[in-house]
């Protein structure tokens, strides 16, 4: 679906952000892109959407290079940026003007999503709150039904009920054809949505595994101390949250993406080693 090969990119010559970054995304999966501040998550999404051009390497969607921004390529993707402004139009008028460019746009789905998110179709978008505008853009991004959907911090700016609505809507509109790539800091908000974890650190993809593989190879437990056989441990108010290599038929708690993310950042090699020796 999406192939990034040997991408190099820098905002200035002295400090390259990406050097030979390679990543492959498959259709029908929801990828969560995690990384520390300044890791380059937004830049990676901008490169994937053709809004930035790599200095070298290529980003292809369905075999076509994104940087050419050909209509056939651009009609296959939609991006929901973290920071955005919408034109001073009503949601209805915005939709009427934007939808002809997206052949898979589903008007009934848009109507349903607008209703789900409780968005007034007659109120000018610039008069909506930031959260409402974001919900509208999320609704539009799902209704366009593009094979690739890029979302940058989609839950930022949403209140607690809206975050639940977002999760509900995302799971309802899950599509076997679509590849969703979500960049976020809010690991907990997206735990139920994503089925693949990608970690970007120091300009490199340091971890890229499916949640099912993670659940198969790792166990997350609460412990009283730090067991010597643990891979990583974090002290919390109720003891330690600890990560272990999963033993055969061993039961553990559900995958804790936040704990896993912290362990990957601090012990990249030992975590990846678990997945190497399969």
């Amino acid at each position, binding site marked *: 679906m999406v192939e990034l090969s040997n991408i190099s990119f820098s*905002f200035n010559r002295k400090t390259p952000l990406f050097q030979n970054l390679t990543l492959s995304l498959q259709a029908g999966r929801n990828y969560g892109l995690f990384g520390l501040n300044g890791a380059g998550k937004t830049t990676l999404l901008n490169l994937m959407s053709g809004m930035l051009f790599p200095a070298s390497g290529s980003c292809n969607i369905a075999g076509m290079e994104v940087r050419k*921004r*050909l209509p056939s390529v651009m009609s296959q993707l939609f991006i929901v940026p973290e920071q955005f402004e919408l*034109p001073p139009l009503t949601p209805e008028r915005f939709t009427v*003007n934007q939808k002809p*460019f*997206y052949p898979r746009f589903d008007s009934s789905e848009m109507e349903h999503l607008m209703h789900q998110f409780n968005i007034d179709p007659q109120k000018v978008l610039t008069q909506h709150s930031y959260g409402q505008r974001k919900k509208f853009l999320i609704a539009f991004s799902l209704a366009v039904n593009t094979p690739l959907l890029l979302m940058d911090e989609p839950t930022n700016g949403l209140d607690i009920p809206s975050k639940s609505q977002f999760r509900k809507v995302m799971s309802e509109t899950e599509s076997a054809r679509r590849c969703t790539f979500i960049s976020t800091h809010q690991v907990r908000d997206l735990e139920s949505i994503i089925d693949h974890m990608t970690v970007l650190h120091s300009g490199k993809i340091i971890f890229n595994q499916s949640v099912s593989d993670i659940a198969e190879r790792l166990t997350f437990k609460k412990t009283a101390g730090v067991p010597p056989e643990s891979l990583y441990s974090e002290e919390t108010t109720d003891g330690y949250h600890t990560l272990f290599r999963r033993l055969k038929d061993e039961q553990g708690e559900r995958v804790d993406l936040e704990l896993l993310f912290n362990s990957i950042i601090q012990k990249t090699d030992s975590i990846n080693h678990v997945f190497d020796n399969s």
Partner: protein
Amino acid sequence: MDRYKVTDSFNAGRVLHLAKRTVAIQGRSWFTGFAAAIGILTLWWFYPLLNNTQPWHHYHAASLIPTALFLFHLGGYLMTSKIFNELHTPSTAFLSLTLPASTTEKLICAWLITAPLYAFVFLISLVLFLNVIQFATSLFAGTSPSIVWSQIFSSGVFTNVGTYLTYHAAFLLGAVMFKSGQFIKTILAMILISLLITFTIGILYLMLLSEGSFSLNIILSEHRLYPFIQVPAALILLVIAWITLKRKQLI
């Protein structure tokens, strides 16, 4: 055949959709500018009559044509300078940059709106406005109303429209190239480039003339050579605008 298949070849339907989208987003500011121009022209008509500096029965609406032409140029260049505004702000650029339409379609749409369509709307508006003004003047003067027509569809007006269409390409390039203050920056760039060309030609002329082997005898002020310079120049500027738009990024 895949009904979702989008072709990359030029698509007039997409240009029409782009035009509708542009009108929806920018239409309000255009209307404000149009209303302001009508207001200025109305004042321009009414003020001398109100101050009794000119008697009503001596007044002819065609005297507003030079002011209307000035506003036509100013409004058109301002409108052109702002046509790609959405592209230059990172928070709004995503919609435009990722829009499934080709660079050619985007540029042609911008050109069609700000050049031929704008000139057409101007001419229609000028006919309507001047005839309304002439009719109102006749009512005040108590004379029989006359139609303003030949003064509008004169070579002077058409030369102005032609000049607009050629200079317009420079403003379209400025609209793509400059991130802010596109109108002012385009004017400054044009002045700078004109000075540079004049200076270079001057130097070359002096050098060649001083050797006594060549004499430059082209009189541009006779206007005969202008189309042969302006039209290719406008086309070159449009090609540069296309390349700049094609290479436009979020930064």
